[in-house]
């Protein structure tokens, strides 16, 4: 049953300006004692309950190998919520009410007996707590455990195609696969158990208010559409910069790298939102179709073309935010001769009528000078400037900056006259800041996305074809890197904006192009 079905039955919620709460749901967090459950999932659920957004009939069961009783699990999660909830302090009464709906099953996600016991609990929820047979499986696991876990859910009959008690949905955390081949294998396995429409691949970037504002900005403001194309746009930059390092995730990062961690998912999804055609409606499939068309139109880089269009880097020791930090190779669980990239910059082309010849520059890196995620739409210069050269020294072409985090907002760079007797012009920024105009607390991305799963709205979740197309764009780069010598690494110091080669990359087709400093 989707949200519309629920409203049709529920005259008391039809037309409400507040969001309708989801239908009854039993949620299973596989990997329920893990880092993500602590940091994101359970704090998000608590905040949904605090804001009355969970359904009346809602139960959660966490499951993992850690030995916990229900009470021990609740105490552990209480600490997690105290530490990671966006709302503080924790409201004791609300927590107790929420915690009474938290349960725990000890067991490996690869052990069939675990799911048998989870299934018993879910049946109990349906009988006693009216969860209506609706089941949400959140796979909060390392990717290598996905296959056995999904098979286990399928075989046990507690979810997936075999389950006919209500809806049954599965949420997969990124990365979805390690490469194109493994992603396809995972998809094949998943869809044996869950139909594609019940698979929700979570990319928390897409749940951020400021990412959703890209859609609002583009399609609610008619003035930009006429210039949103190769005639007026010189190039687009997508930057996902992090000041932190790998934060004790050396084991993971050594098998991932920046291109798998950020470019294949977050960055290409943002590119798709910037480049997509206006959808006819905001029905999920209309939006996802338009995004998929963009990813399909990405020009595939092959062989030596990769060397020219993509720069990889790795940070060495340096200083970030006034603190001395080690280089990547000195981080725990990282090989001392690792060639894993902590920085990627690439030039991508979208081969369609709207964007022909307009490069999209994507970059991401760790240990950069500051944390910033933004999109820059760099417009072409005015065709003729009637001012003398001296008078326009401070003038740059218009740029539109969509700031995604941390200072969510929009900046428009325009030319303005410098006050005084002479006609001098220079660039100034017009700023719109989300925080100062809409000062309400922004919900966490996980809150929004968990609600969407429960009401069955997949708009903000990448569909399989988008995931596959993104892997198809990235795989040739991975292949080329696997078969060629890396540059000398490390090639940028922690606290710098990446290797010099990235500056050369952006300027190679048009001297003067440069990365915007966030």
């Amino acid at each position, binding site marked *: 049953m989707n949200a519309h079905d629920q409203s049709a039955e529920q005259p008391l919620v039809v037309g409400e300006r507040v969001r309708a709460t989801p239908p009854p749901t039993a949620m299973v967090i596989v990997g329920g004692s893990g880092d993500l459950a602590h940091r994101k999932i359970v704090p998000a659920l608590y905040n949904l309950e605090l804001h009355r957004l969970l359904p009346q009939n809602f139960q959660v069961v966490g499951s993992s190998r850690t030995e916990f009783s229900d009470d021990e699990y609740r105490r552990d999660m209480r600490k997690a919520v105290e530490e990671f909830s966006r709302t503080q302090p924790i409201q004791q009464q609300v927590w107790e009410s929420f915690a009474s709906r938290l349960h725990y099953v000890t067991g490996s996600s690869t052990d069939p007996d675990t799911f048998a016991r989870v299934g018993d609990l879910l049946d109990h929820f349906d009988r006693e707590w009216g*969860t209506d047979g609706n089941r949400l499986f959140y796979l909060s696991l390392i990717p290598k455990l996905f296959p056995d876990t999904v098979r286990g859910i399928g075989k046990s009959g507690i979810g997936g195609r075999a389950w006919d008690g209500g809806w049954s949905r599965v949420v997969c955390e990124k990365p979805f696969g390690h490469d194109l081949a493994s992603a396809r294998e995972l998809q094949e396995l998943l869809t044996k158990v869950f139909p594609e429409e019940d698979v929700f691949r979570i990319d928390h970037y897409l749940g951020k208010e400021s990412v959703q504002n890209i859609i609002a900005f583009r399609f609610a403001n008619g003035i930009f559409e006429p210039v949103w194309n190769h005639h007026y746009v010189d190039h687009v930059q997508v930057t996902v910069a992090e000041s932190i390092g790998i934060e004790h995730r050396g084991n993971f990062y050594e098998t991932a790298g920046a291109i798998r961690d950020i470019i294949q998912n977050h960055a290409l999804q943002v590119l798709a939102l910037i480049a997509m055609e206006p959808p006819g409606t905001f029905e999920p499939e209309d939006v996802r179709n338009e995004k998929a068309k963009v990813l399909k139109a990405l020009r595939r880089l092959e062989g030596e073309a990769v060397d020219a269009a993509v720069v990889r880097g790795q940070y060495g020791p340096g200083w970030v935010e006034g603190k001395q930090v080690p280089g990547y190779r000195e981080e725990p669980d990282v090989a001392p001769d690792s060639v894993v990239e902590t920085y990627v910059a690439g030039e991508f082309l979208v081969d369609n009528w709207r964007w022909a010849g307009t490069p999209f520059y994507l970059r991401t890196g760790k240990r950069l000078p500051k944390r910033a995620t933004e999109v820059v739409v760099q417009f072409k210069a005015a065709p003729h400037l009637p001012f003398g050269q001296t008078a326009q020294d401070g003038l740059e072409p218009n740029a539109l900056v969509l700031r995604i985090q941390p200072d969510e907002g929009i900046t428009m760079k325009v030319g303005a006259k410098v006050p005084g007797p002479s006609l001098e012009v220079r660039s100034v920024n017009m700023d719109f*800041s989300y925080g100062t105009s809409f000062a309400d607390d922004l919900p966490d991305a996980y809150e929004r996305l968990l609600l969407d799963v429960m009401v069955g709205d997949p708009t903000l979740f990448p569909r399989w074809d988008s995931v596959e197309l993104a892997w198809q764009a990235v795989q040739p780069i991975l292949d080329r890197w696997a078969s060629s010598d890396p540059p000398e690494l490390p090639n940028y110091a922690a606290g710098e904006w990446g290797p010099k080669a990235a500056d050369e990359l952006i300027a190679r087709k048009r001297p003067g192009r440069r990365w915007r400093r966030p």
Partner: protein
Amino acid sequence: MSQGTALAGGRGEPPGFSLEPVALGEVDQLLERQRRQDEDVNGVLVRASVSNLVVVCHDRPASRQALAAVERLGQRAPSRCVVLIAEPPAGREDVRTWARVVQRQTDGGPKVVWDEVVVQTTVPPRHLVSVVLPLLLPELPVFTWWTGTPPFGDEVFDELTEVSNRLIVDSAAFADPPADLARLARAAAAITPAVSDCVWGRLTPWRELLAAPFGGPPLRGSHDRIRSVSVDAVEPTAGLELVGWFASRLGWELDEVRLAADPASDAWHARWTTAGGVCDTVVTTSLGAGALTKAALKVDCDDGPASIRVEAPPGHLVATVTATGHEPSRRRVGLASAADPIGLSAELQVFGHDRIFEEALVPAAALAEAASD
């Protein structure tokens, strides 16, 4: 940030808020000057206005209360705030104006900047709009928050609502809440701008908790078999609006209304014809905090009787659902932000008509009026 002789509790009295006196026609220049002065210290100040908020007050004490609410509100919904103290016309038409730029920063949050302008005037009501219009920021929507009881039908009411996109009232502050609620309903049907009642916003969590159980078993589909609704209201209009909401959403027809036998206590008893039979409602009043102290429904489900009960112990709400053959289900959830107890910020985020409220207002007013006949 601002200095000088400020808005006073009475003419010449010490300031309640530090606003700088200024001529009406020079307000924007003063605010610009204040922003520039502060830029020297704190860097460029970006005013973030998403709307104009005109607050109509009948006297200075009311204006100070309104400014305190705006102060709390400003950080959530920064607006150009114009507080209009409309005094009875005197022999001399007088307009006195104060203004200031306000900047606030919450812990770790962005710096929020907005403008406040206070106008105290004895200009005749029909000309008050000429005082307000020059002070509005161009193109941004105009919300008019009328504190106390608006003079429904008077010229000043018509004139000021004419230039507003939305009229906001707080029916809990009405002089005669039930009777004025009926007047509000008539006004809402007659005027162009949308109408909001902050009481309605304060009812939102109650309505959510009362509606939620009908979304799943064992109460799914049984909304037409609600047999009784009992509301204990701190704010009488909240109780009437809650019953009005059920009636309008579920298509109930009002059969009869009677008041409590004890004339000293406010209580509205009513019987409604519903799609599944009849429903008896009672709204009683009591002392307390918030809009209601409790609301309870009795419902006939397929398996037998069921009930939903929502209560408001301090700081949160508790919803308890009981149904034949099921364990009682209890849920505790948070209340609205303590930073905005009136609920004004929620009203400032709604731009169009709130049809659910406007439709609920009709039976709520009918209930109030029938009882007063």
